[in-house]
């Protein structure tokens, strides 16, 4: 047995090539679904592919993307946040009332709500609680608070927020710039910094991290606080667009944000998430949700169904491509 290199040779290198290709394609899938939806829109209504068209169609993409990122942080730690939708609604109500009338109190409330998220992370870790139930309970809490703040639709967004969300940069529509910015910042923070590795590692193999001397309490708190932070940003962005608030305004965001993370290539367990994918997933959902359907002349009765169908089609395409790899 003369120095026969073990586990090298053609087999393993070709295998690794295949795995790398598979991972690359998996990474490209979210982008491909977005392109697909864009192509469909371009085909149905070429005029929509313009500065103005995108500004209009992606109107709600920014808050959805922010909520999706919030959900992604929670999923990165193997938890699930079923309260993000009502939390966004709560933030919206605070933004349209306190933040406009008494900014200082508004800021304190919002910071406090991020603190509540951090506490939830600590509670879930320390008591080893199922996050689904805790956040399920919290979804009632946020909704209750929202109704107490704003019993019926109303309020008004602060002017600075309105002008920010109505910003019209040259050449590229604001929602696209915002989405790129969100994706870039979160990608850098979670995927490239040294503490981002620890955060993702806590979802991958928590026992290993603990043994290496890292505090799992801290990672969970940080992940939940980040979710709270992006939830706050999402609620504010939403009110910046809709100008006034309603206690139920964010309710749909819980399921949208989960769908966005999954469409973006994330997985429920194992710390496998992708910030860029999540933003792309959110954009795909935002586009597929209404503009595409309007162009396709789908009667209102069936718009929800079409939503589901698009989700299924995109996922089916993903499976077809992934399956070929195996």
């Amino acid at each position, binding site marked *: 047995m003369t120095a026969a290199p073990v586990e090298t040779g053609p087999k393993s290198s070709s295998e690794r090539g295949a795995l790398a290709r598979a991972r690359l394609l998996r990474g490209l899938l979210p982008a491909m679904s977005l392109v697909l939806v864009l192509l469909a829109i371009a085909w149905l209504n070429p005029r929509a592919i313009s500065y103005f068209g995108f500004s209009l169609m992606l109107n709600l993409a920014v808050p959805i993307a922010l909520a999706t990122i919030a959900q992604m942080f929670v999923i990165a730690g193997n938890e699930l946040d079923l309260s993000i939708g009502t939390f966004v609604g709560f933030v919206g109500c605070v933004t349209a009332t306190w933040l406009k009338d008494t900014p200082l109190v508004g800021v304190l409330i919002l910071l406090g709500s991020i603190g509540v998220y951090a506490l939830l992370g600590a509670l879930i870790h320390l008591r080893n609680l*199922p996050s689904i139930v*805790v956040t399920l309970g919290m979804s009632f809490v946020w909704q209750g608070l929202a109704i107490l703040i704003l019993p019926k639709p109303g309020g008004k967004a602060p002017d600075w927020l309105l002008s920010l969300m109505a910003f019209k940069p040259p050449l590229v529509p604001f929602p696209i710039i915002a989405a790129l910015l969100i994706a870039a910042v979160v990608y850098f923070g979670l995927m490239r910094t040294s503490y981002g590795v620890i955060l993702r590692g806590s979802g991958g193999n928590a026992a290993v991290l603990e043994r290496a001397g890292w505090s799992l309490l801290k990672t969970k708190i940080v992940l939940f606080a980040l979710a709270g932070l992006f939830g706050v940003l999402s609620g504010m962005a939403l009110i910046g667009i809709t100008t006034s608030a309603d206690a139920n305004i964010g309710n749909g965001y819980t399921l949208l944000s989960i769908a966005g993370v999954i469409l973006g290539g994330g997985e429920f367990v194992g710390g496998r998430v992708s910030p860029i994918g999540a933003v792309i997933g959110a954009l795909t959902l935002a586009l597929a949700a209404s503009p595409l359907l309007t162009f396709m002349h789908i009667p209102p009765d069936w718009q929800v169904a079409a939503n589901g169908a698009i989700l299924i089609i995109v996922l089916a395409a993903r499976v077809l491509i992934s399956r070929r790899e195996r």
Partner: protein
Amino acid sequence: MASLRLLLAKPWIWSFIGALLVWLATITFTGGYGGGGMITAALSLAVFTVIVGVGQMFVITLGPGNVDLSLPANIGLASAVAMKVMDGNDSMIAVGLLAALACGMAIGAANYLLIWALRIPPIIATLSASFIIQSIDISYGRGLQIKPPPGFASFTNWQILGIPVLAILTVLFSIGAAIALQRMIYGRSVLAIGQNIRAAWLAGVNVGRIRFLTYTLSGALGGLDGALLAGYFRGANVDIGNEYLLASIAVVVIGGTSVAGGKANVPGVWGAALFLVLLLTMLNTFGVSAGVRLLLTGLIIVGVITAAGGQTALR
């Protein structure tokens, strides 16, 4: 004393204790007035949560990521199907119930088909499916104003000595479900899959069939629930099942079933359902506003789960 300690070690006991405390708080507030009627009402309403809760319990027990989000849409569609088939006619009650069951089973089977064929997480599969079912319901049930057959409506409200008959039947059904869970191949297989799906396959469990059966069962129970709800509330409605998404998950987990899978608990579903219903009754009795009611409900759910503690860590 030892038996008391044994009883306290059961994960489901806490939900019953909670329900009892809430009931005591309410009748203290009312000065003992209406305590019995409150239990009757709670039993009648809890039945609907228990039926879907048991289905959801089997699904959640299949392991992480398994949850049936299509239940509300399922309940809505099945309620419309049942009312349309019964068409206010007492002779069609059985046919209508069967139609609702079949509708639910078809939805459950379709859910599993999506999970299996697309290999997507059940959360997303049932979510996508629920969008489609919701549309079908909106389109099918548009302007549906059919009242349930009088015989069916009175059946769902029938009481013997203040105990709803439906509740008695549901208790019997729960006992059956508990036996199926612990003593039948089906239940053992569900528990095995929930703990370790790969190990279950390698130990000879027919994973695909068990998962299919579980989603179909959950769908069927959703369908049945829809028909019963339509009977109880005198008519079908697209939104009739909305509150059962959160409720079905909440009763499963408050009842002591592990969201990590592989550990389930039927009595706890009853305790948790009674607890939630009584909690709402209590807050209504106290006359608090909607916002406060939601806030307190949420805080109490979080409080209960914190007090009951999490699952003991594996290993």
